[in-house]
């Protein structure tokens, strides 16, 4: 119970203690305090503080020094820095004050770990002042009698403390009041300065941590004076045109100090000052006459002063005053030149433009009032001298051609200039300058030449800006005869100038030598525009225009042509700058080319726009060279063919229009089938016993009307469909062509291929064998033949050989023909067969078409054929030669005639025109 009340009382006490503003004098007394109170400490030094508890608190609050904790700005100080001196005093030590901060507080950690503040102090850390250095003073003259001395110094490092600086000065027996700087710490101004006594000056710096003094400066203030500049400066001109008198007043009396001066002057508009030699103005004075000036020239003057012995400082320059020197007569005559214009003058007459330059101010020495021009005709002594008074700087005269002497005088208020003489000879026949050249020099263009051998009075240098759009405006300049080069001013960069130099002799004038020059070159402002003039197969003629002189910006050293195909490398060709045309060669035909052109000066290049062109596919005359020989060859072939045909007309006629035997004259015409023969088509052996063929004849039946291809005629095809195996036997030899074998083979089964092959190897020719000729009973045998030999031939030959030809021999002949694989052997039957085809009438064709329509494709008919190589070859030849199916109808047409209807056709019922004559 007691303890509780005790704690309540303790808490109440602490609250009062903390809330009390003045613990010592208030109602509540503080429990302790810190020594020292708010110290100022040197940065980096060590520091120890003591917290002393009041005895009263010990008993009442039950607090002791062992419970004290130290804090720096709410940060606990490590307990290693504490030391309990006795039960009421605790100390804290800091080895380096730079770790300190404000506030430093002493606190109590009471029972229950309640932390209560006992006391706090403010710690100020800083540095003692450094010794001020570099003290220097200057005495400024403020007015005629007033001088102030301003001293400056280096205050040294920052002290972090309030540091007072004092400028002190004294005489040996008198100490003056201190000078306290205001707002600054490195300068102070003393107003009551006295001269002629050595004064000791020094600076004191003081703060809470110490004091420092600068080294003393002992000086007589008169030796560090910066006087006011002379006042009321005036400039007056005297009698002499080259002298101006400068007057002024000094602010300082000679009793204080004697002065020396500096005088500077310059021409108005010029920035460079000239100075009067210092030794001329080293003594006290209030005026000075400046000599050696130019007449009629406005000058600006300024003056300054300082102590005569050189101790102290120069004053500022005085205000500037101007003065003009008096006029004088012109010092030289104006440079004169002429431009002779013969184009606008009548014959034998000149228009002479006399031009001269206004004298420069330092030559005119005043205002030029007028020019006096005198012209004397030197070719005629009796001619009067003509005088002209001109106020401008040019004069135009109409003069007959001749030699003239022109004299020019400039006149001002004071007098006349020396005369300038120009000799205008009848012709410029004297020697010119040699080796004319130019060289850029910064913003000037130097023109140099080698003097002629003769003595030259002077040179005239003409130049003008070359322009493509305007005339050349001539500028000129005169150089003395002993120089061999001048600088041309006012030359613009990147512009072309035409420069001409004339030597002037005492008795005439040399011809001009010209050169073109640039002050500075640049790359062209644009590139040449190239285009094609002519494009061939492998070459193209390019053309372009020269750049105008304004576009060139320099000397065009070369043109560069760059051309390439779309995907090819670029080819570069350099072209002489004088050319405007170039032929590109070795181009690829029928190719798109891109070409551009680059103009180059010494300082760069510029490329013009791209131009594209396509080379031609054929060169010039190439088409003609191909077409004409081809045509000629064709004509020659045709001609040869015609000649050949003409020579072989009989042979051709024989093939084209073969001699058809007259059936009426045929032996068969005598034949009458008394006993119809019965054919057994089932056995070849029976039908075609070997050696039973005695003769071969061809029977050609012409069908005049459609009835010949009646349904009966087509029956054999039906038979073919049904009896494929027997179709071979029904193959017609009529037509006599091996080409007819195609339809025959088309109806052969594959099973019969071997048979067919065997047959073809043994029986190559179909023969209609007639046994029982005339008186005998005719035996009609149809034998299949693979021969390509026209039957008509056989017929003819059979006739020619009276039908007694050896069949074996004949067969062998045919075998040779068929066995040959050369084209002649194959062509010939084809050709012959084609001719036969031509005999097939339209009804035959129709019959063939009908055959196809009937549903029996002709294709199967050809399958069996392929098994016979010879027949296949022939078939190919057939297809190649006929290029159509016109052959097929013939073969197809012939088959029915030779199979089923044949027996009927042999019946002598009807005698047709051109047909059989029934016996």
């Amino acid at each position, binding site marked *: 119970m007691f303890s509780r009340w005790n704690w309540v009382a303790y808490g109440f006490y602490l609250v009062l203690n903390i809330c009390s503003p003045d613990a010592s004098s208030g109602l509540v007394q503080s429990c302790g305090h810190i020594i020292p109170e708010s110290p100022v400490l040197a940065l980096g030094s060590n520091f120890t503080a003591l917290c002393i508890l009041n005895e009263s608190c010990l008993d009442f609050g039950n607090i002791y020094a062992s419970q004290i904790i130290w804090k720096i700005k709410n940060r606990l100080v490590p307990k290693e820095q504490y030391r309990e001196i006795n039960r009421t005093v605790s100390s804290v030590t800091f080895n380096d004050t730079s770790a300190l901060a404000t506030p430093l507080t002493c606190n109590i950690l009471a029972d229950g770990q309640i932390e209560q503040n006992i006391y706090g102090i403010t710690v100020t850390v800083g540095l003692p002042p450094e010794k001020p250095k570099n003290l220097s003073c200057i005495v400024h003259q403020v007015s005629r*009698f007033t001088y102030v001395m301003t001293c400056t110094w280096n205050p040294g490092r920052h002290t972090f403390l309030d540091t007072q600086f004092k400028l002190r000065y004294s*005489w*040996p*027996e*008198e100490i003056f009041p201190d000078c306290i700087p205001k707002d600054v710490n490195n300068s102070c101004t003393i107003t*009551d300065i*006295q*001269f*002629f*006594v*050595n004064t000791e000056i020094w600076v004191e710096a003081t703060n809470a941590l110490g004091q420092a003094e600068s080294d003393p400066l002992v000086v*007589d203030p*008169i030796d560090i004076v910066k006087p006011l500049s002379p006042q009321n400066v005036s400039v007056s001109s005297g009698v002499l045109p080259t002298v101006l008198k400068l007057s002024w007043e000094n602010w300082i*009396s000679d*009793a*204080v*100090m004697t002065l020396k001066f500096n005088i500077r002057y310059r021409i108005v508009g010029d920035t460079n000052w000239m100075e009067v030699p210092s030794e001329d103005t080293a003594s006290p004075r209030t005026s000075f006459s400046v000599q050696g000036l130019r007449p009629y020239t406005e000058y600006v003057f300024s003056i300054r002063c300082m102590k005569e012995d050189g101790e102290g400082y120069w004053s500022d320059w005085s205000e500037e005053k101007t003065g003009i020197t008096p006029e004088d007569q012109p010092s030289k005559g104006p440079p004169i030149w002429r431009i002779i214009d013969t184009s606008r003058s009548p014959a034998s007459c000149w228009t002479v433009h006399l031009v001269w330059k206004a004298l420069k101010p330092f030559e005119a020495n005043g205002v030029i009032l007028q020019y006096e021009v005198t012209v004397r005709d030197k070719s005629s002594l009796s001619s009067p001298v003509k005088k002209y008074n001109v106020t401008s700087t040019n004069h135009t005269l109409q003069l007959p051609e001749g030699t003239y002497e022109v004299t020019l005088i400039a006149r001002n208020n004071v007098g006349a200039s020396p005369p300038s003489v120009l000799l205008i000879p009848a012709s410029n026949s004297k020697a010119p300058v040699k080796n004319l050249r130019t060289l850029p020099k910064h913003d000037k263009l130097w023109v140099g030449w080698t003097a002629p051998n003769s003595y030259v009075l002077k040179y005239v240098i003409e130049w003008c800006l070359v322009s493509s759009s305007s005339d050349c405006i001539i500028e000129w300049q005169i150089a003395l005869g002993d120089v061999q080069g001048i600088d041309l001013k006012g030359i613009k960069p990147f512009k072309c100038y035409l420069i001409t130099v004339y030597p002037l002799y005492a008795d005439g004038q040399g011809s001009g030598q010209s050169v073109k020059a640039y002050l500075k070159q640049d790359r062209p402002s644009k590139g040449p525009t190239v285009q094609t003039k002519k494009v061939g197969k492998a070459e193209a003629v390019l053309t372009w225009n020269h750049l105008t002189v304004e576009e060139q910006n320099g000397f065009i050293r070369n043109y560069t042509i760059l051309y390439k195909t779309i995907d090819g490398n670029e080819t570069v060709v350099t072209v002489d700058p004088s050319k405007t045309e170039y032929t590109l060669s070795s181009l690829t035909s029928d190719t798109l080319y891109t070409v551009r052109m680059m103009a180059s000066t010494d300082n760069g290049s510029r490329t013009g726009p791209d131009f594209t062109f396509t080379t031609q596919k054929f060169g010039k005359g190439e088409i003609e060279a191909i077409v004409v020989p081809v045509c000629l060859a064709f004509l020659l072939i045709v001609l040869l063919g015609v000649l050949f045909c003409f020579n072989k007309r009989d042979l051709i006629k024989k093939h084209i229009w073969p001699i058809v035997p007259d059936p009426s004259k045929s032996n068969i015409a005598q034949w009458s089938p008394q006993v119809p023969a019965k054919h057994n088509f089932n056995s070849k052996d029976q039908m075609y016993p070997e050696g039973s063929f005695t003769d071969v004849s061809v029977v050609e039946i012409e069908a005049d009307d459609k009835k010949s291809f009646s349904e009966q005629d087509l029956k054999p095809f039906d038979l073919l469909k049904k009896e494929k195996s027997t179709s071979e036997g029904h193959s017609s030899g009529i037509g006599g062509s091996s080409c007819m074998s195609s339809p025959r083979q088309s109806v052969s089964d594959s099973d019969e291929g071997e048979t067919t092959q065997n047959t073809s190897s043994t029986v190559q020719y179909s023969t209609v064998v007639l046994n029982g000729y005339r008186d005998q009973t005719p035996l009609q045998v149809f034998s299949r033949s693979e021969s390509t030999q026209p039957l008509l031939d056989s017929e003819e030959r059979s006739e020619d050989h009276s039908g007694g030809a050896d069949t074996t021999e004949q067969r062998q002949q045919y075998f040779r023909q068929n066995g040959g694989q050369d084209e002649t052997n194959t062509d010939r039957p084809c050709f012959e067969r084609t001719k036969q085809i031509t005999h097939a009438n339209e009804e035959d064709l129709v019959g063939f078409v009908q055959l196809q329509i009937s549903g029996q494709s002709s294709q199967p008919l050809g399958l069996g054929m392929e098994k016979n190589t010879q027949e296949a070859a022939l078939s190919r030849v057939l297809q190649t030669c006929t290029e159509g199916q016109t052959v097929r109808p013939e073969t197809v047409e012939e088959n029915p005639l030779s199979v089923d209807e044949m027996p009927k056709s042999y019946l002598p019922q009807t005698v047709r025109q051109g047909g059989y004559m029934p016996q």
Partner: protein
Amino acid sequence: MAAADSPSAALRRDLCSRGIRLAGKMRADVVDLLEAYVEQQGLDASASVAAVEGVPLAAVERWDEQTGTQRLLENLAAYRAFRALLAQMLEEQREQLGEADAGLGRALAAVLLQVSAFAYHLEELLRLESRGIPGEEEDGPPPPPRLSLFEQKLRGLGVLRELAQWAVRSVRDLRQLAKPGPATGAAPSPAENP
């Protein structure tokens, strides 16, 4: 020549030179101050003023026969007197005009400083002469009697006039002392009389 090159000789020469220029400036300033003073005090510039008590007269009959030391001592006595008189004038000036005419007060103070500085120069020269410097209290002028305002003005005019004359004489004295001679204590030749 060797003596001329010694440090003491150089210091003496420097002191003489500086003193000459100081006396010259002092004269110029006193002349200017006289004009301002006459105008300010409403006096006639041609008014005759009796000799100021306690100030030795600048004019002396046998000036050229004086030794250097004599010259220095007379100058020192005169300028010490002037220093006291000018200090009194400055105080009276401030009492009369307050800060109304600060320019005249500043000019008086400046002349007072120059007088003090010149007295310092003279003392330094006497030290170089190895002479004892007389005590100021012993040789100083007696305290001036209490005067009327007009009398104060007239006395001030007299002080300034006498100071201007002394300034001229001091320049000549120091020039005499500055000349290299066998002995500074020897009397100068008659040809060099002012």
